[in-house]
Structures are given as structure tokens and as C-alpha cells.
């Protein structure tokens, strides 16, 4: 076997090196598959800007940032779940439970940090329940989280006093939802919730891409049997993943409460799961697991947010938006399947070419 001193010549393989070309560096960061997403985003922005002058202005753009922060947080967690070959459709309901619980904490117990903490912690606990159903009861994740979607929604109503939303009048708490930083002169300021999203996205991207945990997520999603045979503890991983997803859902629910100044059992959080899952698939994840990135998911979240915002500015009825979202989910998954089929065909060709 070659010894370590041969390392210099061992590189007939190009080792991945930091790119000197800034354009190449950006491409590497975004990921080549997401490039088409980025282009679609640019095209959309240009299109909308030509139709209305109100789109490409700082106030509106920052509003978009604020609007996508809830779905964005959910999508960070969902990326981990889908890459691991799982699914969590209960995220909306978890957010609902967190929303009402944080409202109770803030309004009746007069504690803002307490409210945030309880929301996130409850989300984590509900995520752990999901993980238990999936690992110990061996229920398929789709069915398991479909069941908990319903159960958690009921839970949210049970927690709400009288089953109704609670008004939250705490100023400090409201900052979380609609507060801004760097409000200077005419600059509208960056929404705090958007900053939270950016922080979570950067952290999530880093963890998924560069940590042992993150790489193990890719492994177990790509081939659970191989991952197990390589020593990865699938049960433990699933707990971490669903708890992460649950905690982020909890945080998202807290932000909904802060933004609307009311704890909502449902109306602030319904439909979130569709948009979240669509974003992750649009962002490059595949049904079979093992592929997908946080950057991709965030680009997709941005795309959907821009689409929504643009349609609003242009006065297009909301129902068209729903149709568009459904359509985009189908397109996203179909592209993924198409890529996989093409790769398989390529593999068969390679295999057939090797003669004995």
C-alpha cells in the first residue's frame, strides 16, 4: 500500500480546493443543482419588477424577508428530515401548539423568555413523540406525522382557554414578530424574525454539510442499510432529527404569535406544511433521501415568498397562489425523479460498457 509520503503524487485525483475564482466559489457554495433555482428566482424578480414599481423597493423586500421567516425556519428542520428519508407533516400543528402555549406564558405568567422557551421546548417534545412512533412503533413517517398532525391540532385547541385565540399585549414579545433592527433614516430596518431565520439557516447549512451528524443524515437517507452497517445508530439519529424539526417548528409558532399578537391554535399555522415540504423538494431534495441542501431549501423558500408577494402586489387572487404552489410541488418532485431515472440509465450504460 502507498505510504503517506506519496500523498503528493496520490493526487491524480483533484482534491476539492477553495476556488480562487469568486464566481466559481459562489457556484460551489450554492450548489450546481440550485443554479437553475437561482436563475428562476432572478427571472421571477425581473418579471415582477416590470409589472409593478412597488416590488423592488427596500421596504417591500424586507417585508418579504419577514414573511418567509416562518416557513423558512420550518424548512431548515424539514431539510434534515427529508434528506434522512423521512417526512414530517405535523410541523404546522406543532407550530400551533407552540403558538398558543407561548401566548399563555406571556399573557398569564408575564414572561417573554419563558414564552419563547416553552414554545421551543414543547416543539422538541412533540418532535420526540413523532420519533418514538416512527422508531419504536415502526410506523411509516408519513402515516405517523399525519396522525400527529391531527392529534397536535387537537392538543392546541385543548390548551387554548375556551378553545379560542388569546390576545398578547406584551410589547417586548411583539418585537420578535415585527420588530426591526437598524431602523435608520428612511431605511426600514431588518426584521428580527428574518435575522433569526438567517442565523438558523447558516447554522443548519453548516451542520448538515460539515458535521459528523449532518453527514450521517445524508448517509442514512441515501442507504439506511449501509449506514447501519457502517456503525450509524439510526434510532438515535431519527430522534435528533425529529426533535430538531419539532424545536424549529416551535420557534416558528412563537414568531407567529409575536407577529399577530395572538396565540392561534390554527389559523396562523395552517397550510405551513405544504409550503415547507414544497420548498425542500424544490431546493433539490429527492423522495428517496440522501440529497438536498439547506441553501437549496432557502432559495426555494425565497422563490415561493417572492411569488406570493408579487401575486399580492399585482392583485392576483390568493386562490391562484394555491394552485401555483401545488403545481410547483409536482414540478419539483418530477424533476428530481427525472434526474434519478437519467442517472440510472447512465449507470446501466457504464456497466454494459465494461467487458470482461
Amino acid at each position, binding site marked *: 500500500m502507498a505510504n503517506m509520503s506519496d500523498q503528493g503524487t496520490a493526487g491524480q485525483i483533484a482534491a476539492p480546493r477553495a476556488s480562487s475564482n469568486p464566481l466559481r466559489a459562489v457556484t460551489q457554495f450554492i450548489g450546481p443543482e440550485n443554479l437553475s433555482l437561482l436563475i428562476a428566482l432572478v427571472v421571477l424578480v425581473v418579471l415582477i419588477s416590470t409589472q409593478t414599481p412597488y416590488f423592488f423597493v427596500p421596504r417591500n423586500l424586507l417585508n418579504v424577508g419577514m414573511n418567509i421567516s416562518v416557513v423558512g425556519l420550518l424548512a431548515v428542520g424539514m431539510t434534515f428530515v427529508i434528506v434522512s428519508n423521512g417526512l414530517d407533516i405535523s410541523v404546522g400543528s406543532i407550530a400551533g401548539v407552540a403558538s398558543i402555549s407561548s401566548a399563555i406564558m406571556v399573557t398569564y405568567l408575564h414572561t417573554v423568555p419563558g414564552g419563547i422557551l416553552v414554545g421551543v421546548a414543547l416543539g422538541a417534545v412533540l418532535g420526540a413523540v413523532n420519533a418514538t412512533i416512527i422508531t419504536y412503533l415502526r410506523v411509516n413517517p408519513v402515516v405517523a406525522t399525519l396522525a400527529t398532525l391531527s392529534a397536535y391540532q387537537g392538543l392546541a385547541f385543548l390548551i387554548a382557554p375556551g378553545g379560542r385565540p388569546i390576545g398578547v399585549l406584551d410589547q417586548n414579545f411583539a418585537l420578535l414578530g415585527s420588530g426591526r433592527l437598524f431602523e435608520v433614516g428612511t431605511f426600514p430596518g431588518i426584521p428580527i424574525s428574518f435575522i433569526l431565520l438567517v442565523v438558523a439557516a447558516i447554522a443548519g447549512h453548516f451542520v448538515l454539510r460539515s458535521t459528523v451528524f449532518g453527514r450521517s443524515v445524508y448517509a442514512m437517507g441515501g*442507504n439506511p442499510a449501509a449506514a447501519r452497517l457502517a456503525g450509524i445508530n439510526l434510532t438515535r439519529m431519527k430522534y435528533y432529527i425529529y426533535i430538531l424539526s419539532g424545536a424549529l417548528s416551535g420557534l416558528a409558532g412563537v414568531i407567529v404569535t409575536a407577529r399577530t399578537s395572538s396565540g392561534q391554535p390554527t389559523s396562523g399555522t395552517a397550510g405551513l406544511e405544504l409550503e415547507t415540504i414544497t420548498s425542500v423538494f424544490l431546493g433539490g431534495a429527492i423522495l*428517496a433521501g440522501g440529497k438536498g441542501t439547506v441553501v437549496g431549501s432557502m432559495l426555494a423558500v425565497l422563490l415561493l415568498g417572492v411569488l406570493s408577494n408579487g401575486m399580492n402586489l399585482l392583485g392576483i387572487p390568493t386562490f391562484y397562489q394555491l394552485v401555483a404552489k401545488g403545481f410547483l410541488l409536482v414540478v419539483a418532485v418530477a424533476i428530481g425523479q427525472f434526474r434519478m431515472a437519467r442517472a440510472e440509465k447512465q449507470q446501466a450504460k457504464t456497466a454494459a460498457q465494461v467487458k470482461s
Partner: protein
Amino acid sequence: MSGAILEISGVSKAFPNVRALSNLSLSVERGEVVAFVGENGAGKSTLLKILSGDYRADSGTVVLDGQDISHVDPKEAREAGLRVVRQEPEIVPHVTAAENIYLGEFPRRGNVVDFREMRRRTADLFEEGGFTGFLSPDAMGDRLSPAQKHVIEITRALKPGVKVVAFDEPTSSLTAEETERLFALIRRLKERGLGIIYVSHRMHEVMAISDRVAVLRDGHLMGVLQTAETTQETIVRMMVGRDLAKGFERTDTTRPNETVLEVGGINSIWHRDVGFTIRAGEILGFAGLVGAGRTELAKVIFGEYARNSGTVRMLGREVPPGSPAKAIRSNIGFAPEDRKGEGLILVRSVIENASLAVFSALSRWGILRSRMMVETVAPLIASLDIKTPSLEQEVGKLSGGNQQKVVLARWLAAKPRVLILDEPTRAVDVGAKAEIYRLIDDLAKSGMAIMLISSEMPELLALSDRIVVMHGGRLSAPIEKSAATEEGILRLALGQAA
């Protein structure tokens, strides 16, 4: 009785890396039983699949009672009269025996299934086959014993229009009594003038029931013997005896005497009291027929499958069962047979797959250091001569041989004291095979203990220091390299005395 009912002429078939059948010509007469024998990979199942229409031969013809069935699909082959009784019956659990037998060919009254007619015909078929009383046409699929399931497979084959029946390892789940009943049936079928093909590893059965024996080896027909005029020894000798892996020789080493792996008293669903030891620098070869339980043994040792009792000791310390992670912590590595299904993550890169088993070692505070990953993996890629455009290449895009090397690279990175290799050169081209042999030799030279499972006799003989043979859930005593012969090993694998 005149004229062959089945005429196979010049049939050849090749797969991407392997030539499975070469210019095979053979005929089966009416009222005759021809046995097909051969080692793993000799081509028996490929031939059966060509006869049944599941595969299409690259060249040559198959003529059944004057009708050319060389290019038909399975349904047409069945209708023409060629029926294969599969080794593993495929039974639909929640419908009756009669429905299973008439699956896809239900008797109809107009547009509606005629259940009564189906039941009646099934009862008649059972009568003809001598199965009346053995099972009822109304028995539910999931309540049937293995022998009863087998009867359903047989009855399916004996529906009207049958001309040639091929039995594929029919007695693997039968008792002696049931086997006798099967033989009685086969004799009756002979009297009806059918042609019968009997594929089996069980020599005494072959001697008992067949009129002629066709011996296959490496896709070639070595010869067809009159059963009455030959012996088991002659047949076995014909099955083996090719050149050893050309030109490959182990480097001579003096091996340290340290015992690295001690396995004792393993009992599980597949194994009875299995035990062995491997010393540092030694390669212990595991021979046996497909399905003998070698892969299962590897997985039991590696913690992937459960065991009822028994111990596994690494350098004296017991390896706790329960998960592969524990085995890996005890410095055992396992390169599985099914590299795509269990070995590789096809959508991930070469470098990720290669470092999969050592993520924690290549990280600090949980963060993977890509420089450490490259430093560890690049030398392995080079020394294994893995051909890939870059470390980031998706492993699914590499050729079979290179994929296998990535699996090996993974375990080399983990530096185990014991490495279990399950069919390491399966579907690997000749060039890469030689490289992998060289690598295995180097590993042994460096002191690694190796458990080598292989169905390729020359490979096993060339690489192993000692060989054990698995049969009937038990492991034979180890055979020294100098005393090992293909014939001897095959006989042990077949369950005969050495």
C-alpha cells in the same frame, strides 16, 4: 418413445461482466429425466431462465416438441408446455390454493370467475398428481406448509398442455417422505411421456431419479452421462477442475501466532454450534453452497443479525452483540456481498462513502475536517487504483469494480484487526479482480486477520491459508491450504464425506 421433446442448440448468454453460458447443446427425450448439476455460477439457473422465457439467449435455439420457443415471453413458454417449478414458491397468502394455482388463468363464465369450476379442476389435478388428501383446494395460502406450497407450484406446472417440467432444487424444504412422494410423481410423469429436468445439488437424489446427468461448469456443458453407468465421484470430478486463478500467488509470510478472532458455539436460526479462530495475518476461507448460511454467519458476528448463543472474542475481549457499531468499535470490519444495497450510498460521493466508517475520527468537536478526510482517503484511492474523475464523484456512477474498491477503501480507513469480506470480487472485471487479490494479500501481510467468503473456488484456494466449509448449518474442521482440493471442498459443501 422417440424424438427429443426438448432440443437446446448452441445457446449462449452473456451479461456485462460475465459469460454465463457458452454454446450449450442438449436434448431431453420424452419420458426421460435429465439432471442438471454444477457449482454455484455454473449456469444452471441462467439456463432455466432461458427455457422459461425470463431471459433471452444471445444466440442458439430452444425447440419444444417441434415448436421454436427461443424468443417467447414466460407466458407463451408456459402455454407452449414448458413449465418450471421454482425453488422458492411464490404464493399469494390470502387466497385459496385453487386460486393460487389458477392465478392469471382463472376459468371464466362470461366475465366472472367460475370458482366452482376452478375448484373442480384443482381437485382433478390433485388426483392426477396423487396429492388428494395432502391439501385441500380451499386451503388458504398463508396456512400452507412449505411442502404444500411446493405442491401448488408443481400443480401449476402440471396444468393441461404440459410437455416439459423443470424442477429447480425441489427437495430443499421437503422431508424424506415427501421427497419419496415427489419421486413417485416424477415416475408417473415419465410414464406420461413428459420430459423432465431435475436441477439439484443433492447427488444421491440425482443418482436415484435421473436417467442422464448433464454437468455444467463455468457456462460450458462438460458432458452428459448415463446415470446408471457412472458414479457420484465421476460427476463431482467433472464439476470442478479448472485452472486456479491465473498466475495469482500469495506472498510467503511467516505469520505471527497471535489469535485475533475467536468465534465459539454460535447458534442461530441458520447455524448450529459454529466456531472457528483466525490468527493475525491469516486468511480463513469460507466455502459452501449459496444459501448455506455464510453471509448470515458474517452478519451474526458483525452484530447485524441476532444469535441465540455463542461468543465472539477479539483479542480475548468479548464483542457485545446487538449492533454493527459495537463490532466496529471492537475493530471488526465487514464488506457486504450486496455492495449496492448494503455497502454503498450511491448518491453520495467517493470521499463520503470511503470515510463513512471513520467519521468521528476525521472530525474535531463533531465537525468534519475536510483536509483530514482527503488526507485519509486520497492515499487509499491511489493505492487501490480506484478510477474516478474526482473525490466528489457520485459513487453510483463508477463501474462495479471501482465501486467494490470504494467499499474496501472504507474498511481500510477504519484499520480493523479483522476484516470480513463477503464475495469481494462479485461482478468485478478481471483486471480489478487481480488488483483486489493483491490488496487482500497485502492486508494479510500487514497482520490483518481476514474472513473470506467466496463462491469462486479458484479464488478461495488461491487466497486462503485455511478453508472451512459450511453445510447444513455447521462448519467443517479447517482444511490446510496444502490439503485443500476443489473436489474435496465441493463434496463437503454438498454434504458428502470428505
